[in-house]
């Protein structure tokens, strides 16, 4: 449904988005994960057609964003970073306006308003003027507006920003429900959020797409370069030689333990093979005092940080 290929946006010598390529299929929720300023918003705005790309192309439902903008606009619901609400209007008047522009037939408008206000829990405020609403309500009104007309593609720029935990929960439910038969791309910098609702995660930083995979796929990818941490009392040089002789250990970092004299903390980079920990344990425990050995389970948080701070050698998996 969404097809982005080699998208680039440059501002003078800054590349806000640099050669980004990905697809979002129907019935799929893709989380767009990256720190602030990574290029998430810029990419989304290019998909909506608000912002022209420097090069590359974006397609929605097979229509090129720049060649057939009308066809694209008819098919997307977009929630920008700041909810685009007219503060002097009432919630109802605002939604009614958007529904009319989206071409919802007059007879169906009431039902459609009912549907989105219920989904976004806005029933209590439909008669209120928007300037009286809290940030959370405005955010949800922005989401309701995007849902109007049941668009095939939803683009949500940080839909949970500014919400309290309960509202975040509800908003995620709305997105999850919507994602069953639509294509949803939503951006966030909250890692936990993508694990909860996304089938795939795209990690972006400095305008580059670093990885796109399922949360578990990313986890697996990182396990390729897994880490085993151990604490042991041993002479440094001998320990280093012993560990490096083990098949599967690729790198070492040995430093004295802060807690106890003579004890060393060792971080071993190991490859994905099973049994490497056991081999380490055997090799060390036979000669020295092994206090602790632990395989670090990569959380998505770590993966994110790993990608964002140091993109893995070998480049992107896109």
């Amino acid at each position, binding site marked *: 449904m969404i097809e982005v290929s080699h998208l680039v946006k440059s501002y003078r010598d800054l590349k806000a988005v640099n050669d980004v390529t990905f697809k979002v299929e129907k019935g799929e929720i893709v989380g767009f994960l990256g720190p602030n300023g990574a290029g998430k918003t810029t990419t989304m705005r290019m998909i909506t057609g608000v912002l022209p790309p420097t090069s590359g192309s974006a397609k929605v439902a097979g229509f090129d964003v720049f060649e057939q903008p009308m066809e694209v606009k008819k098919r997307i619901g*977009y929630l920008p970073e700041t909810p685009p609400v007219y503060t002097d209007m009432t919630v109802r008047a605002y939604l009614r306006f958007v529904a*009319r*522009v989206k071409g919802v037939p007059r007879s169906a408008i009431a039902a459609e308003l009912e549907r989105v206000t219920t989904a976004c829990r806005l029933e209590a405020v439909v008669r209120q003027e928007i300037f009286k609403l809290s940030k959370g309500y405005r955010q949800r009104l922005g989401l309701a507006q995007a849902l109007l007309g049941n668009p095939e593609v939803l683009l949500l720029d940080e839909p949970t920003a500014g919400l309290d935990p309960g509202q975040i929960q509800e908003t995620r439910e709305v997105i999850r429900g919507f994602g069953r038969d639509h294509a949803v791309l939503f951006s966030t910098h909250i890692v936990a959020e993508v694990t909860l609702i996304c089938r795939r995660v795209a990690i972006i930083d400095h305008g580059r797409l670093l990885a796109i995979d399922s949360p578990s796929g990313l986890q697996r990818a990182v396990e390729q370069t897994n880490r085993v941490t151990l604490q042991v009392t041993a002479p440094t040089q001998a320990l280093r030689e012993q560990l490096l002789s083990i098949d599967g250990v690729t790198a070492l970092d040995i430093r004295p333990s802060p807690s106890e004299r003579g004890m060393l903390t060792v971080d071993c980079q190991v490859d994905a093979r099973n049994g490497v920990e056991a081999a380490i344990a055997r090799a060390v425990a036979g000669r020295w005092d092994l206090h602790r050995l632990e395989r670090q389970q990569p959380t998505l948080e770590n993966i994110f940080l790993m990608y964002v701070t140091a993109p893995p050698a070998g480049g992107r998996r896109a």
Partner: protein
Amino acid sequence: MSGTLAVYQKELATYFRSPIAYYVVAVFLLGTGYFFLYNVFLTGETTMAGTFQNMGILLLTLVPVISMRLFSAEYSAGTAELLLTLPLSPWQIVLGKYLGAVTILTLMTAGTLVDLVPLYLFGTPETTTILAGYIGFVLLGMACLAVGQLFSTLTHNQIVAALITAAVLLGFWFVGHLQSFQRSEELRGLFGYLSFALHFVDFIQGLVRTEAVVFYLVVAAITLTLSAAYLAWRR
């Protein structure tokens, strides 16, 4: 079409939810009422000629107030992002908003019809001349609003939009006066042709010249096209 209509209705509602529409109409009617009394009762002539002249100048000060928010407010509130991603073409947005502003102009103008009551009660004014004056006034207003709308599409700052509009409109109003400083026939002709005021004078005198009608409509068409083109380009 329905998109243009929806934008138009939203625009008009916005004018009446804010003080702008009331302010503009009130100031205009008070001003026009004053000028009307001044012109008619002091001279004793039952014409609208002097009043129309003053209405034109008053219009120049009020058009920026009407037009400044058209796009600038949308930019600064972030709602431009909504309009540009909804299934609306730049032309639909521009036209819907413009028609909203023109409706305010029409209301202002209609309000001044009250002044005609004493004119017809106590004298015998020339109806065709008055009619021509009103046609000219609305056309002048339409051209001015389109210019104002163009400057509002160019900046997110309403004050800047209003100030530039006022300056440009004043320039086009007074450009005719430059004629007296020119020897060159061509330049005199050009200044005369560009003058918003000189075309308006024809209408006030009861002449509905095709050239003048076309002039105002072309000014409106050009500036509206530029607004739509800018929106399309800005994407």
